């Protein structure tokens, strides 16, 4: 009963702040709303008996990635976006395609019942996750690592392009 109250409270928070991310005009408020939504999501993990995932959710998404987002938004000092002139047909097509996508998503989730708890006891402590990452799934894990490394190197090369040689390293 207590779990249910907590779930609905934080589910409401997550949904409200997620809506705020896309509906609010101010980019900084949107970014902070996304942080709140991530935080509410972390509570869901706690309710699912996965405190490790909850902590990682806050550290990685709310603590690291969103700090970077807020940093960039503030650095560029984005103010209220000027409303671009859009044709009614563009707006109409936008609404129709997103509605179609949403309906398709809900239909397939219900049809194939993706949302189903796995059988057996649910273990998600640090030890279990470490074992599965470094034993069962070592190859995909290493592949993702190399992909990320390539992305970092690519970003560095792109940011260096156009700068004169011998320029001060950032």
């Amino acid at each position: 009963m207590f779990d249910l109250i907590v779930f609905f409270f934080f589910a409401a928070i997550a949904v409200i702040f997620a809506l705020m991310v896309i509906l609010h005009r101010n980019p900084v408020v949107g970014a902070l709303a996304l942080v709140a939504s991530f935080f509410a999501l972390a509570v869901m993990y706690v309710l699912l008996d996965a405190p490790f995932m909850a902590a990682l959710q806050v550290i990685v998404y709310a603590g690291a990635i969103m700090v970077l987002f807020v940093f960039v938004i503030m650095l560029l000092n984005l103010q209220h976006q000027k409303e671009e002139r859009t044709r009614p047909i563009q707006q109409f097509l936008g609404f129709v395609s997103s509605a179609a996508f949403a309906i398709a998503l809900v239909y397939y989730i219900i049809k194939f019942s993706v949302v189903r708890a796995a059988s057996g006891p649910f273990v998600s402590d640090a030890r279990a996750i470490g074992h599965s990452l470094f034993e069962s799934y070592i190859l995909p894990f290493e592949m993702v690592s190399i992909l990320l490394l390539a992305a970092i190197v690519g970003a560095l090369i792109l940011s260096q392009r156009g700068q004169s040689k011998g320029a001060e390293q950032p």
Partner: protein
Amino acid sequence: MSFDATDITLSILKIAIVLGGMLSVTPLMVWVERRGSALIQDRVGPNRVGPFGLLQSLADAGKFILKEDIIPAKAHKVLYTLAPMFGLIPALTTIAVIPWGRSFVLPETTVFGRRLFEGGRLFEPIIADVSVGILLIFALASLSVYGLATAGWASNNKFALFGGIRASAQMISYELSLTLSAIGVLMVSGSLRLVDVVHRQAGYFVLFDAIKLPAWNIFPMFLGFIIFLTAAFAETNRLPFDFAEAEAELVAGYHTEYSSMKFAMFFMSEYMAMATISSLMVTLFLGGWDIPWYNEPPTLLGFLFSAGAFVAKVSIILFIFVWVRWTIPRMKYDLLMRIGWKVFLPLAIFNIMLVAFFIAKRWI
């Protein structure tokens, strides 16, 4: 899990003790800071209000409450008001997972004809003994930057904005070193629970079959401790790394526009964050509440001794914060970022390798 009225009462008692301690950290530390800086700079310092100027902080608090609370006309009003709270909440909540004394059994007693603690009840001096304690601290500590960044942005002031931007860049950089330098401790204890981390440090290292050294993590991981201490200065925005406020360059940085209690909240969260990170440092590296060469009995007396030892160790670390602030001048900002990424991060990774080597050799 079931709990009764006694459990709830004990929990409330624990929260009251910790919250009272945390709230009194700020006035005490302000006094230590002002008198300490006077000592270091060969001045007298505040000595008019109360004995040794001890009540100076109380007078300051009165001043803060009575000052006019100004919200700039062009500020983002909602975020401007929320920002000090964003700063204060992580600083107040993280302390909940840190154990601050030896657990002991409360004996059965009769108070006003009611029997309490039937058959004895274990009193654990920690508010929330969660299985991912240390991760929870890092998670909440990483949120504290939003207070500074939001304050800087919402003030609509270019100096404040610079302060907020610097704070976020600095925290991203030093959080990595802070977390990585603590991994050595977790490798040794094999648990994310801070109670286990403290219990792991209760024994002795015996050197050359003669010298008994307490099994604190600082001895095998001195490098990790130094990295953690330095990163802690950066995380709490203390000199020599206080670029978020840097009076000489940015007027007062992120809190330029703040006055009255909103400013006082930033002030409080800075000192509380210092207290929390010092407690974490003591728990991870200095044996927590463990008293070296002494075996605390599992009674009320042993608990009081161990809690006293914990407070004493935290006070020493807090004094180091003050000592460093009034001794080392502020660095250059680009130097801060450079040593963060190019010195401390590689050293922290080297520390992990070193600890892994020790463990493989079975030295610790």
